[in-house]
């Protein structure tokens, strides 16, 4: 069993450290308005219904939209308005807009933020890092324990777009909700929690990924991105959730070139990232949103079942999805990460890998450079050989979706002649490949 110690991010004001979880609240009113049976009946929240698309080719959100630049779309107004309201009510642990941030000079434009308050006053806790799928644990903190004031609105599919400022929470058909992250990385940082009352563990399935894509598409801004961290890839809470926030600059990963591998039957183009410190796959296109969502979900499920931690970035209003398997936590547990990198206390989750670094110390912020960022992220990446193995696993898992024509470039599936700057680490490769053969 591999473990690391790190300071967990506090995403809710109700998230207590394990030691503080005194007597469990077994039934009986908890005295506050949480989402468990004690407080839920009769509770109301705003409800936003997005239009569920008919899964007909070409009826993607993008094409059915009118051709003018839409005004701030309603979802964005709702999300930002509710978020600002919570800010003015003092629900966040700090004002993220008071944190200095800059684009690091360089080719990619990594974004660095100096945030000394994010992990202040928190003791490190232990996290198990070698098990990507873990069963939901009721005794631990989960999102049904948050106060209703932290939930901004319900987010549900419907036949038409609809907004209800106050709607009863349907306990029979658990709604999906959008909640604030009280330790935001950026303005508007929220959590998308699919079917919150069903207490799903942190693991991607087809429905939840599709919901996340719908949200990205509905927000209609290429600067509103969603991210996912699996367990073992720095997810803090084992209750299914995606994160999202607004940042109106391109992420370094979005600028990286990629090399096309193949196109699936559903029209999804799969490429391999090039010239980026972390190796990963890019999924774009698709005849329908569902086609795109299914291929990515299948790939994630493959990684989950082979116990490979990974992160997912949904960008470009749901039109481009990045998937990167990673091994940093494992390296950390094995003591293979240099002290210098550990010192920065950066846990490379989806945002960091995408190029948005939150730094806790002024020194690190002032010395932030593209080189340093690159070096850190290179540690996160699977080695070239390991990545090719994982890629083969994924392609096997999705093989039924791939077209049979020679659009699959066989040379790309083997070790391509790709130049990269990652450190070769043969030892990790060996250890890594041994471990993943153990099924969960």
């Amino acid at each position: 069993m591999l473990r690391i110690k790190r300071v967990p991010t506090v995403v809710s004001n109700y998230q207590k450290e394990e030691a503080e979880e005194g007597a469990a609240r077994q039934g009986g009113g908890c005295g506050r308005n949480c989402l468990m049976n004690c407080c839920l009946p009769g509770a109301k929240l705003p409800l936003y219904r997005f239009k569920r698309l008919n899964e007909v080719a070409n009826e993607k959100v993008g094409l059915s939209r009118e051709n003018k630049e839409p005004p701030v779309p309603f979802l964005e107004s709702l999300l930002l308005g509710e978020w600002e309201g919570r800010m003015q009510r003092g629900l966040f642990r700090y004002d993220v807009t008071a944190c200095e941030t800059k684009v690091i000079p360089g080719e990619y434009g990594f974004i660095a933020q100096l945030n000394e308050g994010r992990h202040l006053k928190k003791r490190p806790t232990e996290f198990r890092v070698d098990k990507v799928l873990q069963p939901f644990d009721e005794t631990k903190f989960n999102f049904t324990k948050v106060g209703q004031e932290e939930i901004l609105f319900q987010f549900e599919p419907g036949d038409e777009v609809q907004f209800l400022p106050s709607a009863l929470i349907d306990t029979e058909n658990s709604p999906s909700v959008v909640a604030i992250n009280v330790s935001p990385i950026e303005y508007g940082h929220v959590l998308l929690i699919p079917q919150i009352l069903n207490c799903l563990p942190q693991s991607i399935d087809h429905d939840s990924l599709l919901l996340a894509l719908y949200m990205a598409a509905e927000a209609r801004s290429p600067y509103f991105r969603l991210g996912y961290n699996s367990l073992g890839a720095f997810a803090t809470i084992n209750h299914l959730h995606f994160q999202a926030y607004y940042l109106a600059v391109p992420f370094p990963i979005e600028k990286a070139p990629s090399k096309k591998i193949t196109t699936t039957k559903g029209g999804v183009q799969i490429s391999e990232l090039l010239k980026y410190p972390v190796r990963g796959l890019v999924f774009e296109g698709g005849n329908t949103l569902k086609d795109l969502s299914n291929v990515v979900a299948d790939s994630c499920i493959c990684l989950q079942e082979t116990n490979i931690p990974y992160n997912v970035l949904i960008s470009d209003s749901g039109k481009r999805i990045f998937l990167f398997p990673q091994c940093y936590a494992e390296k950390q547990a094995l003591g293979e990460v240099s002290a210098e990198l550990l010192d920065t206390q950066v846990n490379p989750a989806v945002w960091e890998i995408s190029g948005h670094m939150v730094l806790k110390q002024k020194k690190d912020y002032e010395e932030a450079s593209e080189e340093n960022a690159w070096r850190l992220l290179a540690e996160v990446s699977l080695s070239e050989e390991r990545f090719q193995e994982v890629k083969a696993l994924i392609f096997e898992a999705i093989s039924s979706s791939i077209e049979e024509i020679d659009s699959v470039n066989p040379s790309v599936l083997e070790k391509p002649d790709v130049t990269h700057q990652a450190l070769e680490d043969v030892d990790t490769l060996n250890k890594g490949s041994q471990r993943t053969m153990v099924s969960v």
Partner: protein
Amino acid sequence: MEPQLGLIEQSFHVRYSDGVREALDELGDSFLITDPSISGHPIVFASSAFLKIFGYSKDQVIGKNGRMFQGPKTNRRSVLEIREAIRQEKAIQISLLNYRKDGTPFWMLFHMCPVFAKEDGRVVHFLGVQVPILRKSRVVRNPSKLCEDGTGFLGCCRREVTSDSVMEVGRGLALDYLLNSDDRELEIDQPCEASELEKRKAATAISNILSVLAHYSESEVTGRLVCGKACCLSGMGLGASINISFGRIKQSFVLTDPHLHDMPIVYASDAFLKLTGYARHEVLGRNCRFLSGLDTVSATQFEIAECIRNERPCTVHILNYRKDKTSFWNFLHISPVRNATGKVAYFVGVQISSSCNSQGKQGLSPAMEHLSVVGAVKVAVRSLSIGASTS
């Protein structure tokens, strides 16, 4: 829709003297001109060659955003690069897959360039030229080699790649190729590199168009000069990208700068101008107190001043006056806005007039409308100031 068309007409009218449209069309190139200061960053001019290549009529294009020509197979990363160039007010030349009205895709070389006003260095328009890329074969790396071989050519192989003198013929063939060829399907998926000739053609077109624009802006009628390079630093004005971001916000709001003397307005939304009856140049640079009048309660004004001093948000009901001296109750919310340095850079003031009923449509309560504008402004100001320190 009407106010929008009015603004589009104005876009050219205030900058260039009459005859500019005809002169532009005489150039014969395919290009679009867009205006970032109008909400939605719409197209304000489309050349006849453009309309012919893409198969649209003028009315179907004017007022729309350039993304209407993108489609499912348009490379998203290329779109990102263009968006970035607009944000940074830089020129860009990139191959792009566009779609004609009938849905057929084709590759073109897109060359975009900002048009700056000489007097203050602001971007007043973006100019985008399209040069269709003639597909010679899948591998376009050695065009001269292919030429000699004579193999792998499609319909337009007769065109001499290196001779300028047949550019005219080439263009005609290009149009023919695009309008008639059936071989395109197989190759759409392959990324396409433009030839040197095509790149030069684009650059020449840009230069010619800029000359025309510069020529027609020198006359006394408009008194404003335009040129192709940033001739001076943009002073108080906010950049094109902030204009585009703010342009998306439909509500009435202003941005004021507490670091300038007497905290003047540095941005005012179209809705604000409509609400108060003033023109933009009549409000920029002035402190908001000009909206108050005889019956405005001074205690309210004092409360506002206090909140600003303490960098706190505040919400008040204040009696304000329009340009025509009529009064209205302004449900006003003011909030500090920080930029990427983390310090307060502006204050945003959002106005909801109780007599104005258009804002209830979205379903958000007035208080929520206030906050949503504040949120959108905060995101824009923070994000768009992030790169400032590096330039």
